């Protein structure tokens, strides 16, 4: 029960032109999932999302930093093309270069979801992935 040890899943970083998140987790899977939750919290209220649909995501890349960026960029792509917002991210496999997840959410419903921010992309700028007692990842977005 790592969750109980955590103060929060993520915090929002405030920068002049853009915005970022620091996400935490008892393990790296949880930190990656919380990074995704943090990102969708910028787009809309997480509590307003129902888990009525799921998508499967599978990625293989060259290194761990790319994995974090491409994971989030994949979700931005799904938001943009399929008009989906997600709130639960079950990462079943995570290595330093690959990820497999089933993610739950729903199509954007303007009556239900206030879309606060569009996100253009996750960036490598000031990206960090730290393993300690608590795993911590930091990502900045272009919004």
């Amino acid at each position, binding site marked *: 029960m790592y969750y109980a040890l955590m103060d929060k899943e993520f915090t929002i970083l405030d920068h002049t032109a853009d915005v970022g998140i620091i996400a935490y987790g008892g393990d790296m899977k949880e930190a990656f999932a919380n990074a995704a939750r943090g990102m969708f919290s910028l787009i809309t209220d997480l509590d307003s999302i129902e888990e009525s649909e799921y998508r499967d995501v599978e990625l293989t890349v060259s290194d761990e*930093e790319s994995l974090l960026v491409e994971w989030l960029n994949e979700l931005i792509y799904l938001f943009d093309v399929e008009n989906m917002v997600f709130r639960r991210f079950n990462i079943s496999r995570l290595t330093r270069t690959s990820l497999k997840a089933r993610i739950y959410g729903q199509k954007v419903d303007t009556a239900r979801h206030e*879309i606060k921010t569009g996100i253009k992309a996750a960036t*490598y700028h000031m990206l960090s992935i730290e393993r300690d007692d608590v795993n911590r990842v930091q990502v900045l977005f272009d919004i």
Partner: protein
Amino acid sequence: MAAPWREILKKIDDYRWEIPTDYKAGMTVPGLIYASEAMLGKIWEDKAFEQVANVAFLPGIVGHSMAMPDIHWGYGFAIGGVAATGVEDGVVSPGGVGFDINCGVRLLRTNMTEEEVRPKINQIVNELYFNVPSGVGSKGKLKVSEKELDEIMVNGSRWAVEKGFGDAEDVTATEESGCIKGANPDKVSAKAKQRGIPQLGTLGSGNHFLEVSVVGEIYDPDAAGVMGIIETGQVVVMIHTGSRGFGHQVCTDYVALLGNAVKKYGISLPDRQLACAPVQSPEGKDYLAGMAGAANYAWTNRQCITHWTREAFMKVFGKSRKELGLEQIYDVAHNIAKIEEHAVGGAKRLLCVHRKGATRAFPPGNPDIPQAYRDIGQPVLIPGDMGRYSYVALGTDTAMKETFGSTCHGAGRMQSRSAARRMLKGADVVRVLAEKGITVKAGSISSLAEEASEAYKDVSEVVDVTERAGISRKVVKLVPVGVIKG
């Protein structure tokens, strides 16, 4: 205590500040910031110096890593940056263009005055809002096929005009005639195309807008006259948008691909977001071919929006196009990389000029600007925030000599989006704007707070620095009366 930047920057004159190469090991050229002394504290706090210094690491960078006075912190490259690299020995970097490839500004003039437009301002704002899709994830009214998207990537604005969206004169009055050569649809991923197809002909969100403005001041009546701006109170329309999700995905794809190229070519960089590849490498050429496709998509996007803007005016005012005017003054790209010839140390060199939040500002006589503007120089469109004013300026010889023909692109943010939200409520922003005589319509009222005047620097200070430094000169000031935001 003296400001920390005083020990770093070498003052060249009141508006030019150099970051010497010894500031950071790895810089191959100095940095050069165009700013007033009063602006430097904020630029320092923003860590934008560091970013200007980081760009000076790029292999083959020529002259200086430059920052325009609207410089502010970006992801990797600062926003408001200009960096030119040698085509033969330098690199191209997608981060030096940004995610919104060919984000840019277009300006239309009308034959109408403020007195004629004011009584119908709510109607015209509503009609524009209705006729031009906007907002996060907005879908366009156009249904283009994949084949048509390929044609758009190759032909740019001309595609839209051939489909009936606008005039041939619009194409002439667009940077690069609305089409960068060398676009190759095969160099754009299926994902980018999927994001691009539904979003063509949409304004988007964030700082993008469609604005009805009036001419507030004219500084050079002769030059303004050449642009068809004859009097204060004349109504114009400004469009600010880019390549939407299409460009974002092209950039995302190439930052990843060029991240691998950095290793392959043994390039050492202080920040992964500066990922780059030699201009002449297969990776570099592929990026430029994909970027050109996204740039041409953006011009097509602004062309379609121009057409719908004209339709809205014709409907609300019940007048013909000829009566209304609505001719295009110009259209500029402010997130772009261009292959241009510039004089470097007395010799002509072919350079890859990255302008990320910077506008081309070519001087009078330059063959790459429309014939109509050959005597005055290239129009530069500099939007401010929605509550104050914007400027039309002109390119100069000094810009050509010093900044690879570039100047500023806007006001630059002063406050983060969430700080602005904490300080202001969208509804209050609407009220304050209404008190100033500005009607605003937005898809998301709450996000309007992020775009309030208080969140931005005063664009007049930015424009004044460019004028005093000589890299562009102002011609007209525009004041908003109606604004559409995503």
